[in-house]
């Protein structure tokens, strides 16, 4: 036994030190990953901007200043401004009750939250038409009261909210379950009221999950096409969102304007990424600590 021990130790110490076991494999894998990224992510991005600017900056700006495009920008922002907060609110409530309480229907609720992910957005849009359209379930009542939902902003908001429903909740539920209830109890013994616990403990400890959820939810809400296209009626300048406007313009052979509009959506994605990176950088100490803790457990 005593003779064997040093040999084992040598082996254990040396193994991690052995560098580059397969230099070729490593290089090949990195190259493939890089090429893939370039081909499927970088190239399209370059094409979008080069096409958008193909007729010069002046044309690019005037394409964006078109009343139809401006209206699409407004519609997109309006939809996201309602859908994202609604889903944030819902996500927080859902994660709170799923993580804290055991109740009948809890598993069912978790499954239900995933539903919008597994349904085609077009079906989701159609669903709204079947419910709120003129021949739909609530159609007669709505038209009696002069409320228009389908082919108008409310329908588009409803469809987008439905499609982006799981983003925040899906991010928060596992996080809240993992974090448990200990810190809330500690806050109780330290004299905090229910509201104080929520604002000072529960919400802040979920904030990174919440941030990712909001960014994803917002990106999807602004970029949503399928569901919105079914309920919007696609009247350029009235009920087009940015993604719908891209299609409208492209279909009417205004290629440069279509790409200029598309570049806005691409910029949205870039801004989202930069924002996320900046926030992570600003809170790097805290995040680093969280990661270390996770690695330790």
């Amino acid at each position, binding site marked *: 036994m005593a003779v064997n021990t040093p040999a084992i130790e040598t082996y254990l110490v040396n193994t991690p030190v052995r560098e580059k076991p397969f230099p070729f494999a490593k290089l090949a894998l990195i190259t493939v990953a890089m090429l893939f990224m370039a081909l499927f992510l970088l190239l399209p991005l370059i094409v979008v901007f080069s096409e958008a600017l193909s007729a010069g900056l002046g044309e690019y700006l005037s394409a964006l200043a078109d009343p139809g495009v401006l209206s699409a920008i407004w519609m997109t922002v309006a939809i996201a401004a309602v859908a994202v907060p609604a889903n944030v609110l819902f996500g927080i409530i859902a994660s709170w009750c799923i993580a804290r309480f055991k109740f009948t229907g809890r598993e069912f609720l978790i499954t239900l939250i995933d539903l919008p992910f597994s349904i085609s957005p077009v079906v989701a849009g159609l669903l709204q038409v079947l419910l709120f359209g003129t021949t739909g379930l609530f159609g007669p009542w709505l038209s009696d009261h002069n409320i228009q939902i389908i082919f108008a902003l409310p329908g588009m908001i409803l469809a987008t909210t439905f499609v982006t429903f799981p983003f925040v909740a899906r991010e928060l539920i596992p996080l809240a379950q993992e*974090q448990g209830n*200990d*810190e809330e*109890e*500690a*806050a*109780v*013994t*330290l*004299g*905090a*009221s229910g509201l*104080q616990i929520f604002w*000072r*403990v529960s919400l*802040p*400890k979920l*904030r990174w999950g919440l941030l990712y959820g909001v960014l994803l939810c917002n990106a999807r809400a602004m970029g949503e096409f399928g569901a919105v296209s079914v309920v919007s009626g696609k009247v350029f300048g009235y009920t087009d969102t940015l993604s719908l406007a891209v299609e409208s313009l492209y279909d009417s052979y205004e290629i440069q304007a279509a790409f200029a509009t598309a570049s806005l959506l691409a910029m949205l994605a870039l801004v989202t990424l930069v924002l996320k990176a900046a926030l992570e950088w600003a809170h790097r*100490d*805290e995040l680093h*600590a*969280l990661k*270390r*803790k996770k690695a330790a457990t």
Partner: protein
Amino acid sequence: MSTTIEIKNITRSFGRHTVLNDVNLAVQPGELLALLGPSGSGKTTLLRLIAGLDFPDTGIIKFDKDDALGRKPKERGVGFVFQHYALFRHMTVFENIAFALRIRRAPKAEVTERVNALLKLIQLETLASRYPAQLSGGQRQRVALARALAIQPRVLLLDEPFGALDAVVRRDLRRWLRQLHEEMNITTLFVTHDQEEAFELADRVVIMNAGQINQEGTPIDIYREPANVFVHEFLGESNKFLATIKSGLVQAAAGFPLGTTTAPDGQATAYIRPHHILLRPSLRGAWRVQRLTSTGAHARVTIAHNETQAESAMPADALLESGLTEGAPIDVTFTGGTLFDAQGKTPTKLTALKPTLTQFTNLHSA
């Protein structure tokens, strides 16, 4: 002045499972009291009831003359240290300790002053801007304690305070906590399943089992005079022999004498700690040495009488001097022990047959 805690007829059930069953306990002002028991004995539930994190089905909890159950956790003045610390992960050490003061809207200068004093107390002044995840287990434990002390509580409650720490840190922290308690003199209850911890730290120990208090007293009293079989078994190893008592003489069912007692005639169970079994080499001995093992400072000797086995313990040096070898025949003397009746209650002392002093002399001269 320190606070008295009075617990009367407390019962708490979760569904059909009774976790605490008619518990009565009085904690003296400034006392450091340990609730000792196996997991599931209800000790943590009792702590949570005192803190106001849970509520009893029936019973009374009073702080001095104050009905604590009628008050919110905030008004009870209880400091609670959680088993896994439950520090706020998104706050720095400073903010964690300042939390209760901020909740109470204390002036900024006062918060800074008080938190700095507490940081000094726990010797972590240099780590004020760290996050909990950047601290070691012992450091987190101390931050949790400082956070609980920030409101200057009347009562301090600690749930398995050293459970998640390694042995060396645990020992240091234990001594530090004992010292701190002597300085601040806050009535303190802590929960543990570790006998050594309870005995070293506490003024008084309360032994809990299956939702009831089995015994309370000073560590020495409890160890010397365990109230029932559970307490005896919980406080460390012992040899267990079925025995018959006949006019003061105790005879093991396996056919060897155990000693004398004042208990009435009948059946009993004798519990004898390993260090109460003295061994002496003897060619006519009815026992045999089966196995010798050393655990460092102490030696263990497994002995056998026909089919019956027993464990004896002695200082390792004494074993060397005794000249005991495996397989050797020996004489055995039981220098102490406890007899329990068929219900495992009414303990009586078991005393040695012969004067033990000669046994000692014989052992060392052998």
